[in-house]
């Protein structure tokens, strides 16, 4: 099976879906001639033309609103928002129009659109580094995806581009330098399915996006001291794959949820409570960003968000807690 860069997995998924669905068009900053902030749309403008690959001004509210309106009117839109932080400007159109459209119109209208945005800390400071996935999980009508591998990005983006309602597809700055395996033939990954990345019996480590990479590294370190962690990559933040998570939580009896966003009302809060409802004897712990903005300073950035060592320590603390 071919090995590709993360960006190539995205561009292949988009190109295949644009071939399949002539109503699908793209819009966003620098996606046409420039080929996208991470070269993830390279070649698409040349291949599909200016009507289907449209540059937008630095105006995220307009970009998301335009996508929502076009989708409601019968097209299928994919909007590129450079950093997830900037989606805040487009939340009104996304939350109040796109996500609610199906409910407000009693199912007569839908907004089949994908908003792709890049999250995560990588030296770019407090307004270019945030992980606000949990805000989006809170919105009824929104699907939220956050893959961690090139293969999952490919398969999930294809599913997202066929979904009936709005999807926020979140990637991460630190995932782009990785290569990964994608299938030879076209393949979709169903929305709402988590992936067990490593099998273990002592605790369940749940993460998404780049934190899945760190969780796997932490599991490797934990194994040295005899702790076998089961690592589950959520992939889909909403809907949540409760079945897979519940099976693992029952098996290990201990749950550590790791995220790059804030712990307060975070992804981990929802998972911990939801799994305690399903597995009442489960011991849970959460790990996420400290309650501070992510700084541009490398030292302060590292202080703010979890790293491998923090995951290892939190896992050990969970297992030794009385």
């Amino acid at each position, binding site marked *: 099976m071919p*090995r590709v*860069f*993360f*960006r190539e997995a995205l561009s292949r998924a988009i190109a295949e879906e644009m071939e399949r669905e002539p109503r699908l068009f793209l819009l966003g900053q620098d996606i046409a001639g420039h080929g996208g902030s*991470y*070269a993830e749309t390279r070649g698409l403008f040349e291949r599909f033309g200016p009507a289907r690959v449209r540059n937008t001004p630095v105006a995220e509210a307009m970009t998301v609103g335009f996508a929502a309106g076009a989708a409601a009117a019968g097209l299928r839109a994919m909007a590129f928002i450079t950093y997830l932080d900037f989606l805040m400007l487009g939340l009104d159109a996304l939350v109040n129009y796109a996500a609610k459209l199906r409910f407000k119109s009693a199912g007569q209208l839908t907004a089949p659109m994908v908003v792709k945005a890049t999250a995560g800390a*990588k030296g770019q400071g407090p307004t270019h580094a945030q992980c606000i996935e949990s805000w989006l999980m809170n919105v009824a009508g929104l699907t939220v995806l956050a893959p961690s591998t090139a293969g999952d990005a490919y398969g999930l983006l294809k599913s997202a581009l066929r979904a009936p309602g709005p999807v926020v597809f979140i990637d991460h700055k*630190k995932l*782009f*330098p*990785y*290569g990964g395996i994608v299938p030879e033939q076209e393949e979709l990954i169903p929305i709402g399915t988590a992936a067990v990345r490593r099998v273990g019996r002592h605790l369940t480590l749940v993460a998404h996006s780049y934190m899945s990479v760190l969780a796997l590294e932490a599991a490797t370190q934990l194994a040295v001291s005899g702790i076998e962690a089961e690592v589950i990559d959520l992939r889909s933040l909403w809907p949540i794959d409760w079945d897979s998570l519940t099976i693992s939580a029952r098996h290990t009896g201990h749950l550590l949820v790791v995220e790059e966003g804030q712990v307060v009302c975070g992804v981990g809060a929802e998972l911990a409570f939801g799994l305690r409802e399903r597995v009442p004897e489960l011991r849970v712990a959460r790990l996420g960003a400290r309650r501070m903005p992510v700084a541009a300073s490398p030292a302060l950035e590292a202080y703010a968000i979890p790293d491998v060592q923090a995951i290892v320590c939190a896992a050990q603390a969970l297992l030794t807690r009385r």
Partner: protein
Amino acid sequence: MIPIELGDAIEVRLLLWCKTEGQLLKAGDTLLEFETDKALVLVSASQPAVLRRCFYREGEWMKPGDTVAWLSDEPGEPLPREGAVPGEQLLVAFDVT
């Protein structure tokens, strides 16, 4: 050796060998091209040398720090055993485009 100071590159893909094993390189000759997630990198010889052994094929993936080729001053110079680390690492220049 793939340059270690490659920003945040984690994996790179070898695109093109500009020389074949046994060929001579002048200082400044491009030896190979590889690709990071965001840049095309040309690796050039910083001094005259002979390309003795290529360890990766075009299209293969490598990591910063991997030995990609052995170069020697003279064509007949004995080579280290396979897998051995040569005593002297030849520095190569590289341009990021």
